[in-house]
């Protein structure tokens, strides 16, 4: 048999019977004339059940009424309708379930008249894939549209293919207007070159980018956007373009700018203030130098000449004249002490602290040694507890202890036995040192005044002093970042407390 010899009819029937698609022949009145094996399987009927019955039994109820009209249309104007032309149908199987299929139709003319030959393609699988795809697409869209950011998707050619609703609402434009490079018109002219350069370069290199640029909002205002773009790849790993998200950072940018300008202003102000302070400090220093020199010289002359006056025979011979000269001498000596104390006090506020780890015990020992002359001939009971290390200037801390212990000795003078205790206690990161005595004390209502310069709670005749000592203590301790306070009752002794930092700024001070 040559290739061009037609197959006999029996072979053609076998081929149709064996075809992998469901096939069906319908007469012009809608009766089923023929079905193949695949058709039987597809609808779940045997051909005996189908042959001679109206094809409408295979159509679901809700479209059954329309079907005869469709059929009539075909027979009135019979033409071949190929599969793939998109004629999707839903059929009803014997068990009542529905099946989706696409249908191709061709008119077949036989001796019995015009028939419609239908070939079906099962869409069940494709349907479910399509459905899943549509669902995923819808999910993506709803996510994209409800995201609080502006989203864009670009293809390989850098042209944008998608913008989410927030983007379109922000811009007040349609997807069609924004697609491709339409969005680029909205970029602020000053940012355009930088923005497009970054965009193009990162596309070229397929690397993520973040950038900020101004984009025109629907109300005509340019807003700063922070745009983060990432390359995206299709399932085969091929470069598919970019996807990016933008947030409006105008407010935070404005706040950041404001913060920066405030900082700059603050810095400037600090610089100015520092310069003013330095100047004031310089002036104060000059003033102190002049006080120390210019006040001391005449004072020296007063004491000196009062001294020489006392050596004059005329004065030596007159008790009253001698007394008068001695008053001058005493008063000028007192003035000298005051000037010295004041200068020392003022210097204390200005000198740089030379801080390091200081063993308070050593400092206390030195102070006690210095006080030996004052202790001599007196009954003093010392109670010295353990003293820790602190972070401070040893020379200044020595002045603190010298002042406090000196005071304790001074104000216990009326006591037969002076009892002086030095105690310490750790409180958080501080050391509290207490100097307690059984001296004359003071009225607790006046505790605050004690630490002011020239404030004295006792008469000069009773206890000598210039009223600078405790003010110095307070100044030194406060410069160390500590506090000083006092408790007492009149006649019941006093307790002075000083808190000092144990460590420098919270860290253990290493070798200083």
């Amino acid at each position: 048999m040559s290739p061009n010899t037609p197959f006999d009819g029996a072979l053609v029937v076998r081929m149709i019977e064996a075809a992998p698609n469901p096939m069906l022949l319908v007469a012009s009145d809608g009766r089923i004339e023929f079905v193949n094996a695949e058709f039987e399987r597809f609808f779940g009927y045997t051909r005996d059940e189908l042959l001679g019955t109206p094809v409408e039994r295979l159509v679901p109820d809700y479209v059954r009424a329309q079907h005869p009209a469709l059929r009539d249309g075909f027979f009135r104007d019979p033409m071949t309708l190929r599969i793939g032309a998109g004629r999707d149908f839903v059929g009803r199987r014997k068990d009542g379930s529905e099946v989706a299929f696409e249908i191709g139709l061709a008119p077949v003319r036989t001796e019995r008249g015009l028939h419609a030959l239908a070939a079906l393609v099962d869409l069940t699988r494709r349907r479910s894939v399509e459905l899943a795809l549509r669902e995923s697409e819808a999910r993506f869209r709803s996510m994209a549209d409800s995201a609080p950011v502006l989203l864009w998707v670009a293809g390989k050619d850098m042209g944008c293919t998608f913008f989410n609703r927030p983007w379109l609402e922000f811009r007040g434009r349609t997807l069609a207007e924004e697609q491709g490079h339409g969005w680029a018109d909205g970029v602020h002219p000053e940012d355009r070159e930088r923005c497009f350069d970054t965009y193009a370069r990162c596309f070229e290199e397929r690397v993520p980018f973040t950038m900020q640029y101004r984009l025109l909002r629907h109300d005509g205002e340019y807003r700063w956007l922070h745009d983060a773009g990432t390359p995206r790849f299709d399932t085969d790993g091929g470069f598919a373009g970019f996807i990016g998200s933008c947030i409006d950072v105008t407010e935070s940018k404005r706040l950041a700018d404001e913060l920066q300008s405030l900082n700059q202003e603050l810095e400037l102000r600090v610089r100015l203030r520092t310069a003013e302070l330095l100047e004031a400090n310089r002036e104060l220093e000059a003033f102190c130098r002049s006080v120390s020199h210019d006040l001391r010289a005449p004072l020296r002359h007063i004491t000196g000449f009062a001294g020489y006056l006392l050596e004059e025979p005329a004065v030596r011979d007159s008790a009253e004249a001698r007394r008068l000269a001695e008053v001058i001498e005493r008063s000028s000596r007192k003035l000298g002490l005051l000037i010295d104390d004041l200068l020392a006090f003022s210097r204390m506020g200005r000198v740089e602290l030379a801080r390091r780890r200081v063993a308070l015990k050593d400092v206390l020992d030195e102070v006690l040694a210095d006080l030996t002359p004052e202790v001599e001939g007196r009954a003093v009971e010392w109670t010295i507890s353990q003293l820790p290390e602190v972070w401070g200037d040893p020379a200044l801390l020595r002045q603190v202890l010298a002042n406090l212990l000196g005071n304790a000795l001074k104000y216990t003078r009326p006591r037969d036995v002076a009892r002086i205790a030095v105690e310490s206690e750790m409180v958080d990161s501080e050391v509290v040192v207490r100097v307690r005595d059984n001296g004359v004390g003071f009225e607790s209502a006046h505790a605050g005044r004690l630490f002011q310069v020239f404030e004295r709670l006792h008469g000069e005749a009773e206890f000598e002093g210039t009223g600078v000592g405790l003010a110095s203590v307070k100044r030194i301790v406060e410069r160390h970042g500590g506090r000083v306070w006092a408790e007492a009752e009149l006649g019941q002794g006093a307790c002075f407390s000083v808190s000092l930092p144990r460590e420098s700024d919270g860290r253990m001070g290493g070798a200083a």
Partner: protein
Amino acid sequence: MNRLKRILLVEDSELDIEMTLRALAGHRLANEVAVARDGVEALDYLLRRGAHAGRAEGHPVVILLDNKMPRMSGLELLAILSADDELRHIPVVMLTSSREEGDLVKSYALGANAYVVKPVEFQAFVAAVQELCLFWGLLNTPPPGSVRSL
């Protein structure tokens, strides 16, 4: 011709001059103090110029030098002395009211031999002046070219 004195006191305050001289009153050194009122006059004395052109040759055994003075301060004079090959050998005791650390450091840097702050206390002042003059004027052996010992 003016006699060369063993001690040159450079001091602008009349009262300080009087106090210093009084402190030495009755002392062997009372008549051994020449006074210059500022650095310029001190230099004239040392170089035998101007008002002191006629004084005898030789150098004082010590200069007691105040700092704050008109025309030429003590530190300025010290700078000139230390740059002079001959004059830099004369011992200089700074005798001043100022305890300023800057002055102290500068003084020693310029070759001062001692730095004494004038005591405010009368007895201390008298004692300081007497001891200074005793030590530098009598006890210390001055460099060659100074006035001969008493």
